[in-house]
């Protein structure tokens, strides 16, 4: 059972460590420290509630009744701790052709970049770990050294081998179902005997259809990179059948739903992983919180506002505001002291907090190098029925353009085979229904005619929806100082009075080349599949679609992937990085900033697993720090030593 308390109550306690944020990274660190007996306070800005089954069902219902099924649609608006939402962005025709941005932004983010930053997160118990898909591929060894190997981006101060044991630990904590053999072929798993805790999620019909038609075929990208295609299973943090041989034949017991005993121990294909798995077969940070020891205090509705400096270079306390009514920004301020402070509030929130606290300023890199996986979509109709809208969002991918020497010229990309038809690209299947019914008006104000009904409607929908294929192609974005988060507290504050993140975002040439290559490759894949491409990134009636740009004369678009990263990247040099390899700030020996914000590069892997591995690694370091801090100082022996001198 997960117990939460209020911010006011939490302020009465005393703690060894204060963790800001109850998502994956914060929860894992709190759990590890708590298990070692440290007194930990976890401050969650958003609402709790999903830790009880009735609260979780409430979120499921909120999603069911939402008009737009976006990632945040299972959560209500929170005026005290607002979240960015993908619906905050709109295309804007007025600026096109004049060099002005082709979008407008409302909501929590202040967007000032040339291009929209389309990534959201949710400030609620569990954070974005509640609405994520659960895709957990590891990064490839090459992804850690793009600067030295391929001449772009930034290198990590650690390598894949350093992370490997923590990857394994994270895969156990998250509960990963996967095919280790396939991942070994890719070179991302090196241990020849390694098994994932659970067997892979069965491939979908679409996976098999694509496998049959693509396996072993060759496709060349516009830069001349010729690749043999393979359809590979995606490792997922989702319950499947446990592998009896896992962990030296100890096996694995799937962790089910939190708040309802013996539920959610297998994925049954509800196909709403994003935003919410109705049975909790998808892993969430709630599972980790459920294992918190009694020495961990979890306070919801507690918005960290600053980390306060102490003597020397150390920080001494966290200042936060607690509220009672999420509809109102009314709040009261508290301060809680701690030996160690861990910021685990998401890349953008961590940057916002560091900036508001005026901490870790030496490198000038806080907030800079904001990244994402700009994701371009391609959609087509297959010649046959392929059975979309079943199972998790995607269960297989084509990984072949993630690696290789052409990375010098264009960003690499990972191709996801969507199991959810054209949902992301066109709003299908509802958009298919609307157009078949001829809903809506004509551009001249007239009423549309020609809708079909009854059996005709059913057969029309069946014949098109059942053939929908979609590729979601996530392109690596490398660190660029100009992509950044800033704050301007005098001009931009949220309702509670905290500075809102100001985003400057653009796609560099290397990324644009990657998006372009991805588009071209998608067209060639559709040809191999014998499918008819409907991919279209061109402006409609003069209005460019969101994320539109023209590259090499081709209209292209990208979406945010929800993979916010960068902003406090790690490195060895305090002058050009914010944290060290343990995610400890160079400037402050007892201040950690953890999460995707620490990543100098993101490769083409969904970043949660790497973030969790880093968090587990940092948890060990934080434990050692706390142990060192609590060593008794032996005054007498020092006095004796002085006498002898």
């Amino acid at each position, binding site marked *: 059972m997960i117990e939460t308390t209020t911010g006011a109550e939490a302020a009465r306690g005393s703690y060894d460590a204060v963790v800001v944020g109850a998502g994956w990274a914060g929860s894992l660190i709190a759990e590890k420290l708590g298990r070692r007996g440290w007194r930990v306070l976890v401050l969650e800005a958003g609402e709790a509630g999903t830790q009880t089954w009735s609260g979780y069902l409430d979120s499921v219902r909120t999603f069911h009744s939402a008009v737009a099924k976006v990632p945040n649609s299972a959560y209500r608006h929170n005026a005290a701790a607002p979240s960015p939402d993908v619906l905050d962005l709109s295309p804007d025709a007025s600026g096109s052709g004049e060099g002005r941005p082709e979008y407008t932004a409302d909501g929590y983010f202040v967007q000032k970049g040339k291009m929209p930053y389309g990534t959201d997160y949710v400030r609620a118990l569990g954070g974005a770990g509640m609405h994520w898909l659960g895709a957990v591929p590891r990064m490839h060894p090459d992804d850690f050294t793009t600067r030295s190997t391929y001449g772009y981006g930034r290198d990590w101060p650690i390598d894949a081998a350093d992370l490997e044991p923590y990857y394994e630990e994270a895969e156990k904590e998250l509960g990963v179902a996967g095919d280790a053999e396939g991942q070994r072929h890719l070179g991302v798993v090196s241990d020849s005997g390694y098994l994932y805790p659970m067997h892979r999620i069965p491939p979908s019909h679409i996976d098999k259809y694509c496998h049959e038609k693509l396996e072993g075929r060759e496709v060349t990208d516009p830069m001349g990179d010729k690749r043999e295609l393979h359809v590979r299973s995606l490792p997922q943090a989702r319950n499947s059948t446990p592998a009896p041989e896992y962990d030296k034949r100890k096996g694995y017991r799937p962790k089910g739903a939190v708040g309802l*005993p013996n539920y959610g121990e297998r994925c049954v294909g509800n196909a709403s992983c994003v935003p919410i798995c109705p049975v909790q077969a998808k892993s969430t940070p709630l599972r980790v919180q459920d294992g918190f020891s009694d020495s961990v205090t979890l306070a919801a509705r507690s918005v960290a506002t600053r980390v306060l400096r102490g003597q020397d270079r150390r920080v001494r306390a966290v200042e936060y505001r607690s509220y009672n009514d999420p509809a109102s920004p009314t709040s009261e301020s508290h301060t809680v002291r701690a030996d160690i402070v861990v910021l685990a509030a998401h890349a953008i929130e961590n940057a916002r907090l560091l900036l508001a606290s005026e901490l870790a300023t030496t490198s000038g890199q806080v907030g800079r190098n904001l990244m994402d996986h700009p994701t371009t979509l391609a959609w087509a109709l297959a010649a046959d029925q392929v059975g979309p809208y079943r199972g998790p969002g995607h269960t297989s991918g084509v990984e072949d353009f993630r690696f290789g020497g052409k990375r010098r010229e264009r960003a690499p990309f990972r191709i996801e085979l969507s199991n959810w038809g054209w949902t992301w690209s066109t709003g299908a299947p509802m958009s298919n229904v609307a157009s078949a019914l001829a809903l809506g008006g004509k551009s001249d104000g007239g009423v549309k005619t020609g809708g079909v009904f009854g059996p005709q409607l059913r057969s029309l929908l069946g014949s098109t929806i059942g053939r929908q294929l979609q590729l979601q192609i996530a392109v690596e974005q490398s660190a660029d100082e100009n992509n950044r988060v800033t704050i301007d507290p005098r001009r931009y504050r949220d309702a509670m009075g905290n500075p809102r993140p100001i985003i400057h975002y653009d796609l560099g040439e290397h990324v644009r080349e990657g998006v372009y290559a991805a588009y071209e490759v998608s067209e060639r894949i559709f040809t191999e599949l014998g499918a008819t491409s409907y991919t279209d990134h061109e402006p409609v009636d003069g209005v460019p679609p969101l994320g539109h740009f023209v590259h090499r004369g081709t209209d292209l678009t990208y979406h945010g992937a929800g993979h916010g990263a960068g902003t406090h990247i790690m490195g060895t040099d305090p002058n050009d990085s914010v944290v060290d390899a343990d995610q400890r700030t160079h400037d402050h020996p007892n201040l950690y900033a953890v999460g995707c914000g620490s990543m100098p590069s993101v490769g083409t892997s969904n970043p949660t697993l790497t973030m969790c591995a880093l968090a587990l690694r940092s948890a060990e370091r934080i434990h050692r720090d706390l142990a060192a801090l609590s060593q008794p100082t032996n005054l007498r022996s020092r006095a004796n030593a002085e006498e002898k001198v």
Partner: protein
Amino acid sequence: MINANEVHDAGFKVPRTIQELRTYLQAALEVEHLTIPVYMTGMYTIRPGTNSTAYYTIRSVLLEEMLHMTMAANLLNAVGGEPEVAHPEFIGKYPAQLPMSSTALAPIGLRHFSREALNTFLAIEKPRAFHTDEKDGAGWTSIGQFYDTVGQGIRALVEEQGEHEVFTGSRGKQVGPGDFYNSGGEVFHVTGLDTALTALEMISEQGEGVHDSIWDSDDQLFGEERQLAHYFRFNEIAEGRCYSPNDAPQRPPSGPMLDVTWEDTYPIKGDSTVAEYGKYQHGRAVHRKAVAFNETYATLLSCLETAFRGAPQTMAMAVPIMLELRDLAQQLYRNPHPNPAHAKDGYFASATFEISTSQMEQAKQRVADHVAAVGLEAGQPVDLSRDTVGSNG
């Protein structure tokens, strides 16, 4: 039921031979199953989106009855028996007299979610300690007593003949945790006296609680979260109030109120039959769904039989069948009863759980075809897609 009534009619007796023990364990399988249509009906008649606490409570007990049924099959397999499930007589005729229980107990019928249904549920799960009116030697009094005799029988047989002579079944027939999931407690292999007694303990204590408490033994046996035993889970709903952790079993719950809205239900006639539905021209669609439900239920039973007879990995195929049952139930229960007189009184259509010999034979063939198409292998990843692709083109 195949054996249960016979065992009941023969009167209270500890099984003395392996053959008797097998008969008893087959009866156990039937008794555990007898509750499943009863609880399913209670659950399916809750109007969707209402009474969510009650819904998940009934569901949790239902799942544990499935676990008990599986453990009874493991026990029977362990002593070299052959579980019989895909048999038209396997399902009891409702209302049914609960075997191995006091004859004073009212017959168990299919009832919609209601106070009366909860009373039935409570009667089924009633702890032995509550049967104060029954003296020892008075014959069968409760399911708990029945399992006690099974335990005594196993102990005596092991003492007499040795463990190896009693537990002669093939290990390959045991359903293990990789095959069965989403249930309180855990399915485990029964391979000898110790595991057999643990299985019996689990079955009894999930139902009626650890001696003189409201809790089951899942926390002790499996390190799981402590849960109320079935009787007390149901009593919370009946009383509209939760237990407090220290409540005594004999006292009503003293914890916070629990919201139960008895009117949010589809009232049904528990003795409805598909033949009756078929009599009405306007009831055709309901009739079709009710038949489809029964056929799907038959498929579930033959799937279970396949799993219990040497191919435990077939359990995986039961999952989509159960989801299909849920969907069929949602389509069925919201229709007015085809009989206009019942419809006028506010009754709705319901699943009848009737299976004919020919339906059962067809179901067996269907399952055999599915099994052949899917080709599940023990210990290998579960992938049922060959099945769906094969049948739908």
